[in-house]
């Protein structure tokens, strides 16, 4: 079956449909990761986005329950050059095609994805729609042009109710802005008893839980919408170790007076080299963000820039000068992507342990 990707600038790409039979609209973004399509598709930070894979092939090893990054993927659509006919892997439980169909996510294959990516690189992220017929396409384009960016995505993807991820030893509160499961996996590996709270958790609520530390998760959309969370962090950081990842990083920055900006086409992929400013060491990191912290807005009396993207100097990590709070723009939890930076979870745990030790 034929399917089309229509962009707001009027470009139409014709290809073949897979996944769900459903039309969809979203912000068209691309990722350069060459593996990990399942983790990317189930990453809630892609909420309301149509994801283009630059790797020409996806679906080759199927999908399995272990590698999901959320229960209900929020992605709007998947675009690739080719979907594998045959998938094999010893852990495979389903084909990607089936998986997408069941979750109502449409896919499009067989288009010149490289041409599309170059367009996104030139013009920045564009809105697009996946449709199954050419009739009324002019109207589609007109609608795309008029459409305003989706607002308040985090409330849709964040958990509605608190839930535990039981463990022993350390009590960690995770604030869910659209959390990837791999963050919980990393905490579980490190003997943490986790309570996940919705995005709108207040400082009072968190402090009443006698947590040893707070982790601010990743999530989709514009951090400026998270006013409540910013206020929460400004309070909590004075009392507890805080670790922010991706959206969590932006919120920590905002809570300390910095500003965030929308990037032209963002960082999505996992070959982004990030330099640790103090040690000079460079790690390859998994990234998925369309907003970034404005370096010039950082108040040097409060925050220290700890990590920078090697190529475009994006602020990739900050640390509070007075409180045990730090954050990174990238995903130390990887999945998909390299494990180079998983040490950061250990750093967080040692902040937590130090504080506990001090209290005893």
């Amino acid at each position, binding site marked *: 079956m034929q399917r089309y990707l229509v962009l707001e600038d009027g470009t139409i*790409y014709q290809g073949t449909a897979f996944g769900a039979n459903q039309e969809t609209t979203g912000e068209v973004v*691309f990722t*350069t*990761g*060459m*593996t*990990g399509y*399942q*983790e990317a598709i189930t990453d809630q930070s892609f909420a309301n986005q149509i994801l283009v894979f*630059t*790797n*020409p*092939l996806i679906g*080759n*090893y199927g999908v399995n329950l*272990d*590698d999901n990054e959320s229960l209900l993927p929020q992605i709007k659509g998947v675009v690739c*050059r*080719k979907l*594998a*006919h*045959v*998938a*094999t*892997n*010893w*852990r495979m439980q389903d084909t990607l095609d089936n998986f997408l169909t069941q979750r109502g996510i449409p896919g499009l294959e067989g*288009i*010149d*994805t*490289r*041409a599309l*990516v*170059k367009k996104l*690189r030139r013009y920045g992220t564009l809105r697009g729609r996946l449709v199954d017929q050419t009739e009324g396409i002019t109207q589609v384009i007109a609608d795309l042009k008029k459409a305003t960016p989706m607002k308040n995505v985090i409330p849709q993807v964040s958990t509605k109710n608190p839930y535990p991820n039981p463990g022993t030893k350390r009590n960690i509160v995770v604030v869910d802005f659209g959390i990837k499961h791999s963050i919980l996996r990393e905490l579980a590996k490190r003997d943490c008893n986790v309570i996940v709270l919705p995005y709108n958790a207040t400082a009072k609520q968190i402090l009443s839980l006698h947590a040893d530390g707070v982790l601010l998760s990743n999530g989709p959309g514009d951090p400026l919408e998270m006013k409540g969370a910013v206020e929460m962090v400004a309070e909590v950081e004075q009392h507890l170790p805080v670790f922010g990842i991706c959206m969590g990083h932006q919120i920590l920055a905002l809570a300390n007076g910095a500003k965030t900006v929308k990037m032209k086409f963002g960082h999505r*992929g996992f*070959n982004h*080299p990030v*330099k640790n400013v103090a040690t*000079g*060491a*460079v790690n*390859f990191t998994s990234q998925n963000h369309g907003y970034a912290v404005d370096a010039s807005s950082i108040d040097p009396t409060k925050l220290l820039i700890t990590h920078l993207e*090697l*190529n475009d100097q994006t602020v990739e990590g900050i640390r509070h000068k007075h409180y045990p709070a730090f954050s990174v723009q990238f995903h130390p939890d*990887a*999945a*998909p*992507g*390299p*494990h180079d930076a998983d040490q950061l979870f250990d750093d967080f745990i040692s902040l937590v342990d130090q504080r506990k030790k001090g209290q005893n």
Partner: protein
Amino acid sequence: MPKRTDIHKIMVIGSGPIIIGQAAEFDYSGTQACLALKEEGYETVLVNSNPATIMTDKEVADHVYIEPLTVATITRILRQEAPDALLPTLGGQIGLNLAVALNKTGILDEMGIEVLGTKLSSIDQAEDREKFKELMQELSEPVPASLTVATVDQALDFAKMVGYPVIVRPAFTMGGTGGGLANNETELTEIAKNGLELSPATQCLIEKSIAGFKEIEFEVMRDATDNTMVVCCMENFDPVGIHTGDSIVFAPSQTLSDREYQRLRDCALKLISALKIEGGCNVQLALDPNSYDYNVIEVNPRVSRSSALASKATGYPIAKLAAKIAVGLTLDEVKNPVTKTTYAQFEPALDYVVVKIPRWPFDKFSKADRRLGSQMKATGEVMGIGRTAEEALLKAIASLEIDQKDLLSREAQEASDRELEAKLVHPQDDRLFYIAEAFRRGYSLDDLHELTQINHYFLDIVAGLVKEEGQIARAGLEPATIRQAKQDGYSDATIAQLVNRSPIAVRNFRKQNGIVPVYKMVDTCAGEFDSATPYFYSTYEAENESKRTDRPSVLVIGAGPIRIGQGVEFDYATVHCVRALQKMGYEAIVINSNPETVSTDFSVSDKLYFEPLTLENVLNVADLEQPIGVIVQFGGQTAINLAAGLEENGIKILGTTVKDLDAAEDREAFDQVIKDLGLRQPIGMTTTSRQGVLDAAKEIGYPVLVRPSYVLGGKAMEIVDNQAELEAYLDQNEAVTGSHPILVDSYLEGTECEVDAICDGERVLLPGIMEHIEHAGVHSGDSMAVYPPQSLSNDVKAQIEDATKKLAVALKCIGMMNIQFIIHDNQAYVLEVNPRASRTVPFLSKVTQIEMTQLATRVIMGTSLAEQGYQGGLVQESQLVYVKAPVFSFSKLGDVDSYLGPEMKSTGEVMGADVSFEKALDKAFAGAGMAVPNNGAVLLTIEDGDKAQILPLAKRFNAIGFALFATCGTASFLKKHGLPTTTVAKLNEAGQPAILDVIKDKGVDLVINTMGHDDEKNSDGFIIRQTAIEHHVPLLTALDTVAALLCALEMKSYRTTEL
């Protein structure tokens, strides 16, 4: 960290002659390294014995030495040049081994020369099996369990412990002879017993088998500050069990989930950090397809064949950065040479698929053992790039330069089911085509997986393509079908075959329907950043990224994969042609399919199209680029073969025209030219009947050279001295001679020589004449050659000069040509003319210091020789003497007869230069690995017909103190002539010592064997030669070479005379 300022002068060691396992990729890496060091302002000294390389150009390094790669020679150069440092990690295994050997002599410490790149201790740790195993244990990284055993019981105990199957690898046998896979106790008992018997050390390594695991390679880099990164991850189509150099390889990895990929990546980076490698490194891993288990197979602590492939596959120049890291720069401060906007610390992202297929020499060696296993057998490789795996695979097949142009194999079609399955279970070079055939016969994916252990995903690529064959055949020339076929990589020629049309009809149909290729850039970053790499591949999609410029452009056709007869020499010529064009202001555009070479380094040309060298692909590029013409003279026979088709399609062939190219190759037309010019050539006749052959021979006069016009593997070419022999020949070769015309040529005894000449239509320049050491009967590519000639009179030289001038002008040669002569009775006879650059061009260019290719390129572009300052004629000879010697790879190829004959067998060459012929010879032998001591023992096994010739040679050996060994016939002959000779027992004779034992026990230092060159596998001569090669005893099969070796030995020997 900034680059080091405490060192100024650096020596780089090259990898020597091309042999199987060590090919053109090291010319590429060495050249890149030298240029990178130069770029950083260091003075460079380069040593390599291989003249047919770009790295030995004076433009590449400041001081170039083409000398044998021996400790003695390099020590001398170290003392002469006194470099501050040595960079050995870019010259393959040879470079590494030499650095280790030099270090042992103490010269490096004595002179305070630092080894750059990876430290020698790390090299040792990676290369020494036991130390490596220890390191892996320390790092908790798994390696296949193994144990060296000396008895069958030990083997059984170990297998019981680790579980079956196990692999038995006998120690010190060639190509794993006597080893094998044992699935149970019975099998192991048998194989281990056999292996222990065959092993000279009575030792076998028993290793737990991981055959069937996925074989994954990582190309990783590290700098001195411990920044590490992966450049490329590659996955073998063939599971573990076949040498990676003989495997079909895909990049990026195709079947790994992110979890699997990241675990393996972690392991690769852990290893490179633990080994403290500074530069590039190759890590080979095996992944269980049914669990998370993996094993480390091996680590190469240097730039390798795989890194060259990874560089071309990603665009990321590994060798260049390895050199920069070696002088202290770090990955996060060097710019990515591809994007120029990002840093070198960047893991490339691919938005295409790359397929590498090895190029095996079995078209030349029809008798060779074609089974693939742990010993690499390929001489070269090709790479296909496409947006899908299907497209990349078919493009790679089309690039192979073998009969097989796609998945349609007649041979496979004709095979019985039984033969087919045997081919699937026991992999050979042609397995891919049998897989396709099996799908045609209805085998399922599961069936084929069961038979081959190849992953379903890979098999499905082939299955899908086979299915599409039917669709194309049914639909015919229908736009949607053809568009899809082109997207999947089908060539016009294959489509034409499927729809019963001509390739040109398919091409025209495509163009009429707007089905034309676009060209995509290889940019390391999947389009994320803006780049300007002039490196493209074709595909059938929407956006074309290669833009034609306003500058006049010229297409230069490369030579494709390295194979026997068409080696790195042609890449040398291609690169020089590009340089000349660029200097003249043209845009030089290269098309080539070989990932190992300098010509496919995108920084060499103005634009590189990485494409199969087929008419279709060249025409497509020409359609886009609208060049002023195409140069075909420098890409060997591959490029020449494209000329006629290009011209038919309206593309201008620059230089010698197609009509004149044909004249040189058409026997009749050529004979007429020779006649008209009053030149001599051996008389020749073509006939079709038995009686015709006999009559022709009589008319021409014996001896004659007789062969079928269609010669396969040099078989059935023979020199016969009389009618009886000729009749015997005809009886023996009835099968071949019955169906083809027979060529009968007068066989002239004499010295062979050849010239490479440049002609502008009027003037002809002969930079030099090369005299062959071996007489006719040995292929010119396998002959040793000397410049300037040592035995030719001035008169003969004048004849050669005259004939060359006349021929070049008469054949309307514009550019380069090669002519071979035989000197008989002081007369020069023309044997053969090749209207193109030959394999001797780099050698002759280096020794005469005339950049022949560049000169010829300017001639081709319209600048006359006179305008370039050359009057023409034979250039004055040099004072130094230069000898070129062939190098062979017999030890890698089972069942190939090492007897030299009319069919070329060598894979590479070395050069020796010195003030005298003898000294130059000595160096050439040393460079070619012919390490014969000044005196010792020589074993002579000589065919009866050669006995008269051996006597003077045996006397000379005797005179310089060699002991003579021979089998009874030769021994009694020599004894009769007063030469003390030890008799050895023939193969089937009782008695002591037995001939093979003498060779195996190194009782002799040299084996001379001219017996039974009938290609028969089990002949005594064959077995003796094989044994010599297996035991690394120098072997000579041509008595002319023996005479040359004696010259060198005599020079080094002292006279011992009685007072």
